[in-house]
């Protein structure tokens, strides 16, 4: 019976794969069906994930195993329940307290962590001596790295009108941004194409057995 269910699973996968690809022709009931099932299953998956991976190990499991030591956890439990009260429009204001705690914590943590990891560390990594590099390629690259970083930061400086030296450097910064976006675009295309190849391998290999997996 397990063999039958495995085959049935492959047919299910093939049906949903073709249903989604049918959107390339035009919007149709098969695509709409697959889309809504995807939304439903995604929501269901994250619901279960939240319960089993966040709430049980961090809250319910601890409270049920040792209530006295974890009595403080009743506070976030209560705040979480207050968050759910947001669904009742008249009592919506109650949910501001857990939101305030979440926002206050994340604002405090973000300020420190981003300053450390994304400002100080990145600035320090840019303060290099290009002439101390081993090869000509590395020397040229390091000059490009320093100039590019400064020019792009100048482009993001919006407190003054971008003209004169500021305008010229920010224009140079746009060129660096374009190269970066192009490279990111190339990687995105490659990732999507590899997914497409995976889908075709599934359809032609696992399902139709035309190619060997």
């Amino acid at each position, binding site marked *: 019976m397990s063999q039958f269910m495995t085959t049935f699973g492959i047919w299910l996968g093939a049906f949903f794969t073709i249903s989604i690809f049918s959107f390339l022709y035009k919007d149709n009931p098969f695509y709409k*069906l697959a889309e809504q099932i995807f939304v439903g299953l995604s929501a269901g998956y994250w*619901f279960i994930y939240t319960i089993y991976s966040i709430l049980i190990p961090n809250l319910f499991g601890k409270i049920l195993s040792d209530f006295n030591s974890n009595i403080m956890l009743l506070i976030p439990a209560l705040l979480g329940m207050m*968050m759910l009260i947001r669904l009742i429009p008249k009592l919506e204001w109650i949910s501001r307290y857990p939101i305030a*705690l*979440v926002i206050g914590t994340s*604002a405090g943590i973000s300020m420190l962590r981003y300053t450390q990891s994304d400002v100080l560390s990145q600035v320090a990594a840019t303060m290099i001596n290009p002439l101390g590099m081993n090869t000509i390629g590395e020397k040229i*690259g390091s000059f490009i790295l320093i100039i590019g970083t400064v020019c792009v930061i100048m482009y*993001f400086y919006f407190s003054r009108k971008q003209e004169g030296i500021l305008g010229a450097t920010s224009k140079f910064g746009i060129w660096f941004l374009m*190269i*970066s976006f192009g490279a990111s675009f190339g990687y995105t295309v490659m990732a999507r194409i590899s997914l497409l190849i995976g889908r075709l391998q599934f359809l032609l290999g696992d399902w139709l057995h035309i190619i060997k997996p």
Partner: protein
Amino acid sequence: MKRFLPLMVTFFIGIIVISSEFIPHKPFSSINAGLENWFLIISGFAILLGQISLIKVNSNKVYIKAENWQYYLIGLISFGVMVLCGILWGTQDANGILGSHVDLSKWLGSKPFVYLFDNVYQHLSSTMFALLAFFIASAAYRAFIMRSFESNLLMIAAVVVMLGRTTIGTSFTAWLPQGWRFLHLPDVANFVMNYPTNAAQRAIMISAALGIVGSSLRILLGIERSYLGGGD
């Protein structure tokens, strides 16, 4: 008062978190870890809130028989099936309220939740993203026919990186003599990734981080209040 007290909570919690970073003594040293755990638990409830809100919106569409309501009903049913499978028979690592139910797992080849994930969800998810390959291609075509200097830079970088990371791209420049190896496509792609792209990414990180620090300060000082929503 309904807005003032939450603002004070945000301010004090933010100040405590920041102070605890600079005061390595009790109770400050343990506050951060505790608050992060609280943050995780409340975020868990926030995710549940999102799911319940989705059910509410879709149920309403089914109830008033809005256009395409049948599909929303199917969405709700698939949500229910996934949740029921997860709660009753558990996930790959955890048992549900009916235990691991070995017989059913033997029949399906895996637990029902895992079976649905492997045979439906994973296929839907990867096909949905694979579909984007076609739309990216058409969007790229529209962007590249603009033929400005900037769009050309973008296209050249994209092509170099794509070719430099594939076998066919490598073979294009494989015939180059040793003295011209710096023009070998994988090396050019590596150079583009290591220097100009790295410079732009670094500048974006620094600028975004400065923006986050500014926004965080505005939130803590109560200048930015939009997260509290409308009303009194």
